């Protein structure tokens, strides 16, 4: 009896589903037709936004909570102008994003928008998984050409996505334990000698900042771009690796495998000073409250620190319907609006604007001041940021070499030699 019932019902259910689908399709089409031209207020539809999550972020639920808080504010502002749009946000690891997008694009279920790092946006564009956004002359004028260049492919020249924000790499500390913020590497080691626990990252993104302070930034760039190094550059590399090993021998300097562990250690009071990213500040603020202090990373005898400033980019998907495409582009342009950029910068205090006509009120906030200083420091490492990616084999090998160095299993000279060879190798 149940089997007969099923046999009777299944074809009916399929017919009903088909009819419903036709109706939904007609409705969606009707909405697109009704909208017509450029009337912004008529934009509607569901937009699928993929967010690339840094591979070092282990606590996805915490990241999701932070992002939702940040993004929902922006979505609300956009929906004030386009109330009939709705966003579905999906979080994906950046390492698997290319594969995911390729697979979903083949089904027609790909994203309309992707909020990803600049590097991932370039990879997606190169693989033909995203389409180049339209940039009006006005908008083009508003964005720093250097930033636009970082977000562009050169052969043929086209934008991989619209840059919407810049993250900064900073120093985060427990202000109740540190009397004075270290501004140089010597001061950093001095505070550790005085009993303050200092945390440094082992991953290349988290520790390349110290290379600039020891004059090895140029050498790093040469190696990453597979160019030969001069004797001086080689010496600078040895100086940097020696400083890392000296730091590791300090009783109160600790090295951690990823950024999440550093954040947890600072939050729980195990550490007093760490290198951090501007996007970590909300999470730290929740745990440390008013004790959280933020400063630029310390410079050194070799020059300024060389933090890597990551660029966040909005890329456009290829599966969108006409209505979704229009709404996605409208959202990307909306995110570059000076007012929105300023609101994001001032309210969140974790990213810097890309619109150069937005003035950052640095005097109103120590955090914004530190971020602006970090942005200035990061200019020297800008090309490194564009060239390397965490998932690259050579970055993983670099982390392995530095780990062996800080545990004393390799000498600074040998490590410098191997680092150069590794960075000059194939990605």
């Amino acid at each position: 009896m149940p089997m007969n019932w099923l046999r009777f019902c299944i074809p009916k259910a399929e017919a009903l589903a088909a009819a419903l689908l036709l109706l939904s399709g007609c409705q969606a089409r009707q909405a697109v037709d009704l909208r017509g031209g450029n009337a912004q207020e008529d934009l509607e539809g569901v937009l699928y936004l993929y967010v690339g999550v840094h591979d070092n972020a282990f606590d996805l639920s915490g990241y999701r909570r932070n992002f939702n808080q940040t993004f929902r504010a922006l979505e609300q502002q956009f929906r004030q102008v386009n109330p009939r749009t709705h966003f579905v946000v999906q979080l994906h690891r950046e390492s698997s994003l290319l594969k995911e997008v390729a697979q979903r694009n083949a089904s027609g279920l790909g994203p309309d928008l992707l909020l990803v790092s600049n590097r991932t946006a370039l990879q997606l564009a190169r693989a033909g998984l995203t389409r180049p956004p339209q940039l009006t002359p006005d908008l083009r004028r508003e964005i720093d050409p250097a930033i636009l260049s970082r977000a562009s492919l050169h052969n043929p020249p086209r934008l991989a996505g619209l840059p919407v924000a810049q993250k900064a790499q900073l120093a985060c500390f427990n202000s109740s334990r540190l009397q004075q913020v270290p501004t140089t590497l010597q001061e950093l080691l001095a505070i550790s000698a005085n009993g303050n626990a200092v945390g440094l990252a082992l991953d290349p993104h988290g520790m390349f900042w110290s290379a600039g302070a020891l004059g090895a930034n140029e050498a790093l760039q040469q190696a990453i771009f597979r160019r030969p190094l001069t004797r001086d550059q080689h010496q600078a590399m040895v100086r940097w690796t020696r400083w890392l090993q000296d730091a590791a021998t300090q009783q109160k300097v600790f090295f951690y495998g990823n950024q999440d562990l550093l954040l947890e250690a600072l939050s729980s009071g195990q550490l007093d000073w760490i290198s951090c990213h501007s996007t970590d500040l909300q999470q730290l603020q929740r745990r440390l409250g008013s004790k959280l202090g933020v400063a630029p990373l310390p410079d050194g005898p070799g020059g300024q620190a060389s933090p890597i400033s990551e660029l966040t980019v909005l890329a456009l998907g290829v599966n969108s319907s006409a209505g979704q495409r229009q709404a996605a582009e409208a959202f990307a342009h909306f995110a570059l609006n000076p007012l929105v950029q300023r609101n994001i910068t001032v309210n969140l205090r974790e990213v810097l604007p890309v619109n150069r006509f937005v003035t950052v009120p640095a005097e109103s906030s120590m955090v914004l001041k530190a971020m602006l200083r970090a942005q200035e420091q990061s200019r020297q490492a800008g090309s490194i940021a564009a060239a390397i990616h965490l998932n690259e084999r050579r970055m993983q090998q670099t982390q392995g070499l530095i780990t062996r160095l800080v545990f004393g299993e390799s000498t600074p000279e040998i490590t410098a030699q191997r680092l150069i060879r590794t960075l000059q190798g194939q990605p």
Partner: protein
Amino acid sequence: MNAWLSELVGWLGYLQRPAVVVQVLGVIGMTLIGQLLQRRWLSRCPQRLQSSVKLWLTPLLIALWAGLLSATGQLQGLVLFLLWWRCGWSVLVLLHPLLGRVLDPEQRYDLETRLLRPVFLIAGAVALINQLDTINDVAAIPIGEAFNIEITLGKLFISLAISYLVIVGSGLPAGLMARSLQRLLGINDSSRKAMELILRYAVVSLGVVAVALHMGINPTAVIAIAGGLSVGLGFGIKEIFSNFISGLWLLFEGSVRPGEVLMIDGDPCEVRRLGLRATVLWRDRDNAELLIPNQSFFTQDATTYTGSDRLRRSQVTIAVALQHDPAMVIQLLEQTAVTVPGVLATPPPRALLISYGDWAVNYALRFWISNPMNNISSCSAVNQAIWTAFKTHDIEIPYPQQVAYLARSSAAAATDRQPRRLGEGETGQPG
């Protein structure tokens, strides 16, 4: 609640895309065409091809649709996904006869309906959700709070899945372990089945604890709440609780275990399963399954034939004509019983002269059988053998006789005094 509804509604947004609508409509259309073709043309197919057509016609049509989309440069990833899923289902159906070769029908039914098909359907649903969304995002959707812990969709799903798998999947490992222990300790089958059940309960209990810990429930809070609930349990669901505890008690005591034979309302019944609430017994007489609450065995007397061994002493009674020598009859009865299949030679059958009746001498033949459930059939076989033996030895099984005298004049009475037979013969009755 709003979050997951919003997520669910969000998936409908894909229907704004013509490429998605074309793929889904195509698959639905091909499935409908497949059903129609099966209805109209299946009976015309040769018998041996019918099952293959049933299984593969719809996947073939879906594959054709995918090919058509591919040839015209349209997207077909979703069609291919649904095709793989449909083929997987056909393969599952193909497994049915193969499983029949290694498993008995009941085991195969359990495996297919409780494990393979549900797992396949759930895995398919999860894979589809992963096409439309990311499993991590869906799993993170909050649905409520319990014991100060946020319950997410993922936690709930994993908890339910683990609980289900533990309950359904613990049978086989528990059975294997019980068999190993039986070989090691030399225990009998009933004890093995009891041990299997105890092991299963232990695994399920551990699974429940693991699920609670996975949910992040604080064990101290659970103990405190369990303490409070125990009062409620005492009043509210005391029957269920009482049956559960009785079941565990019976298992440890060993008086009611799977395989035991108990007398229920005068009929021997075999214990099939000792459940959490009730015991299932099988009655041979009418092939009925009796569901008796566990606590009944605590409050009522019960007779068992399998307490210390599985032997049962049976008895038949026979009426033999008065003229036959009792010693000869007794010897013949004992010799006859031994020849009947199922009657044990040791302890030996024993015949007894029970009483002198009005028209016959009553004997009882007592013998032992190894399966208490076979009493009726054994008695029947013994009675048949006695009939044959008596016929061979010219021993009469008499009809009941009664002499009636008519009260007339004494002379007539003297001439008419003739005996008259009334009534019917009698054979032995099984005890």
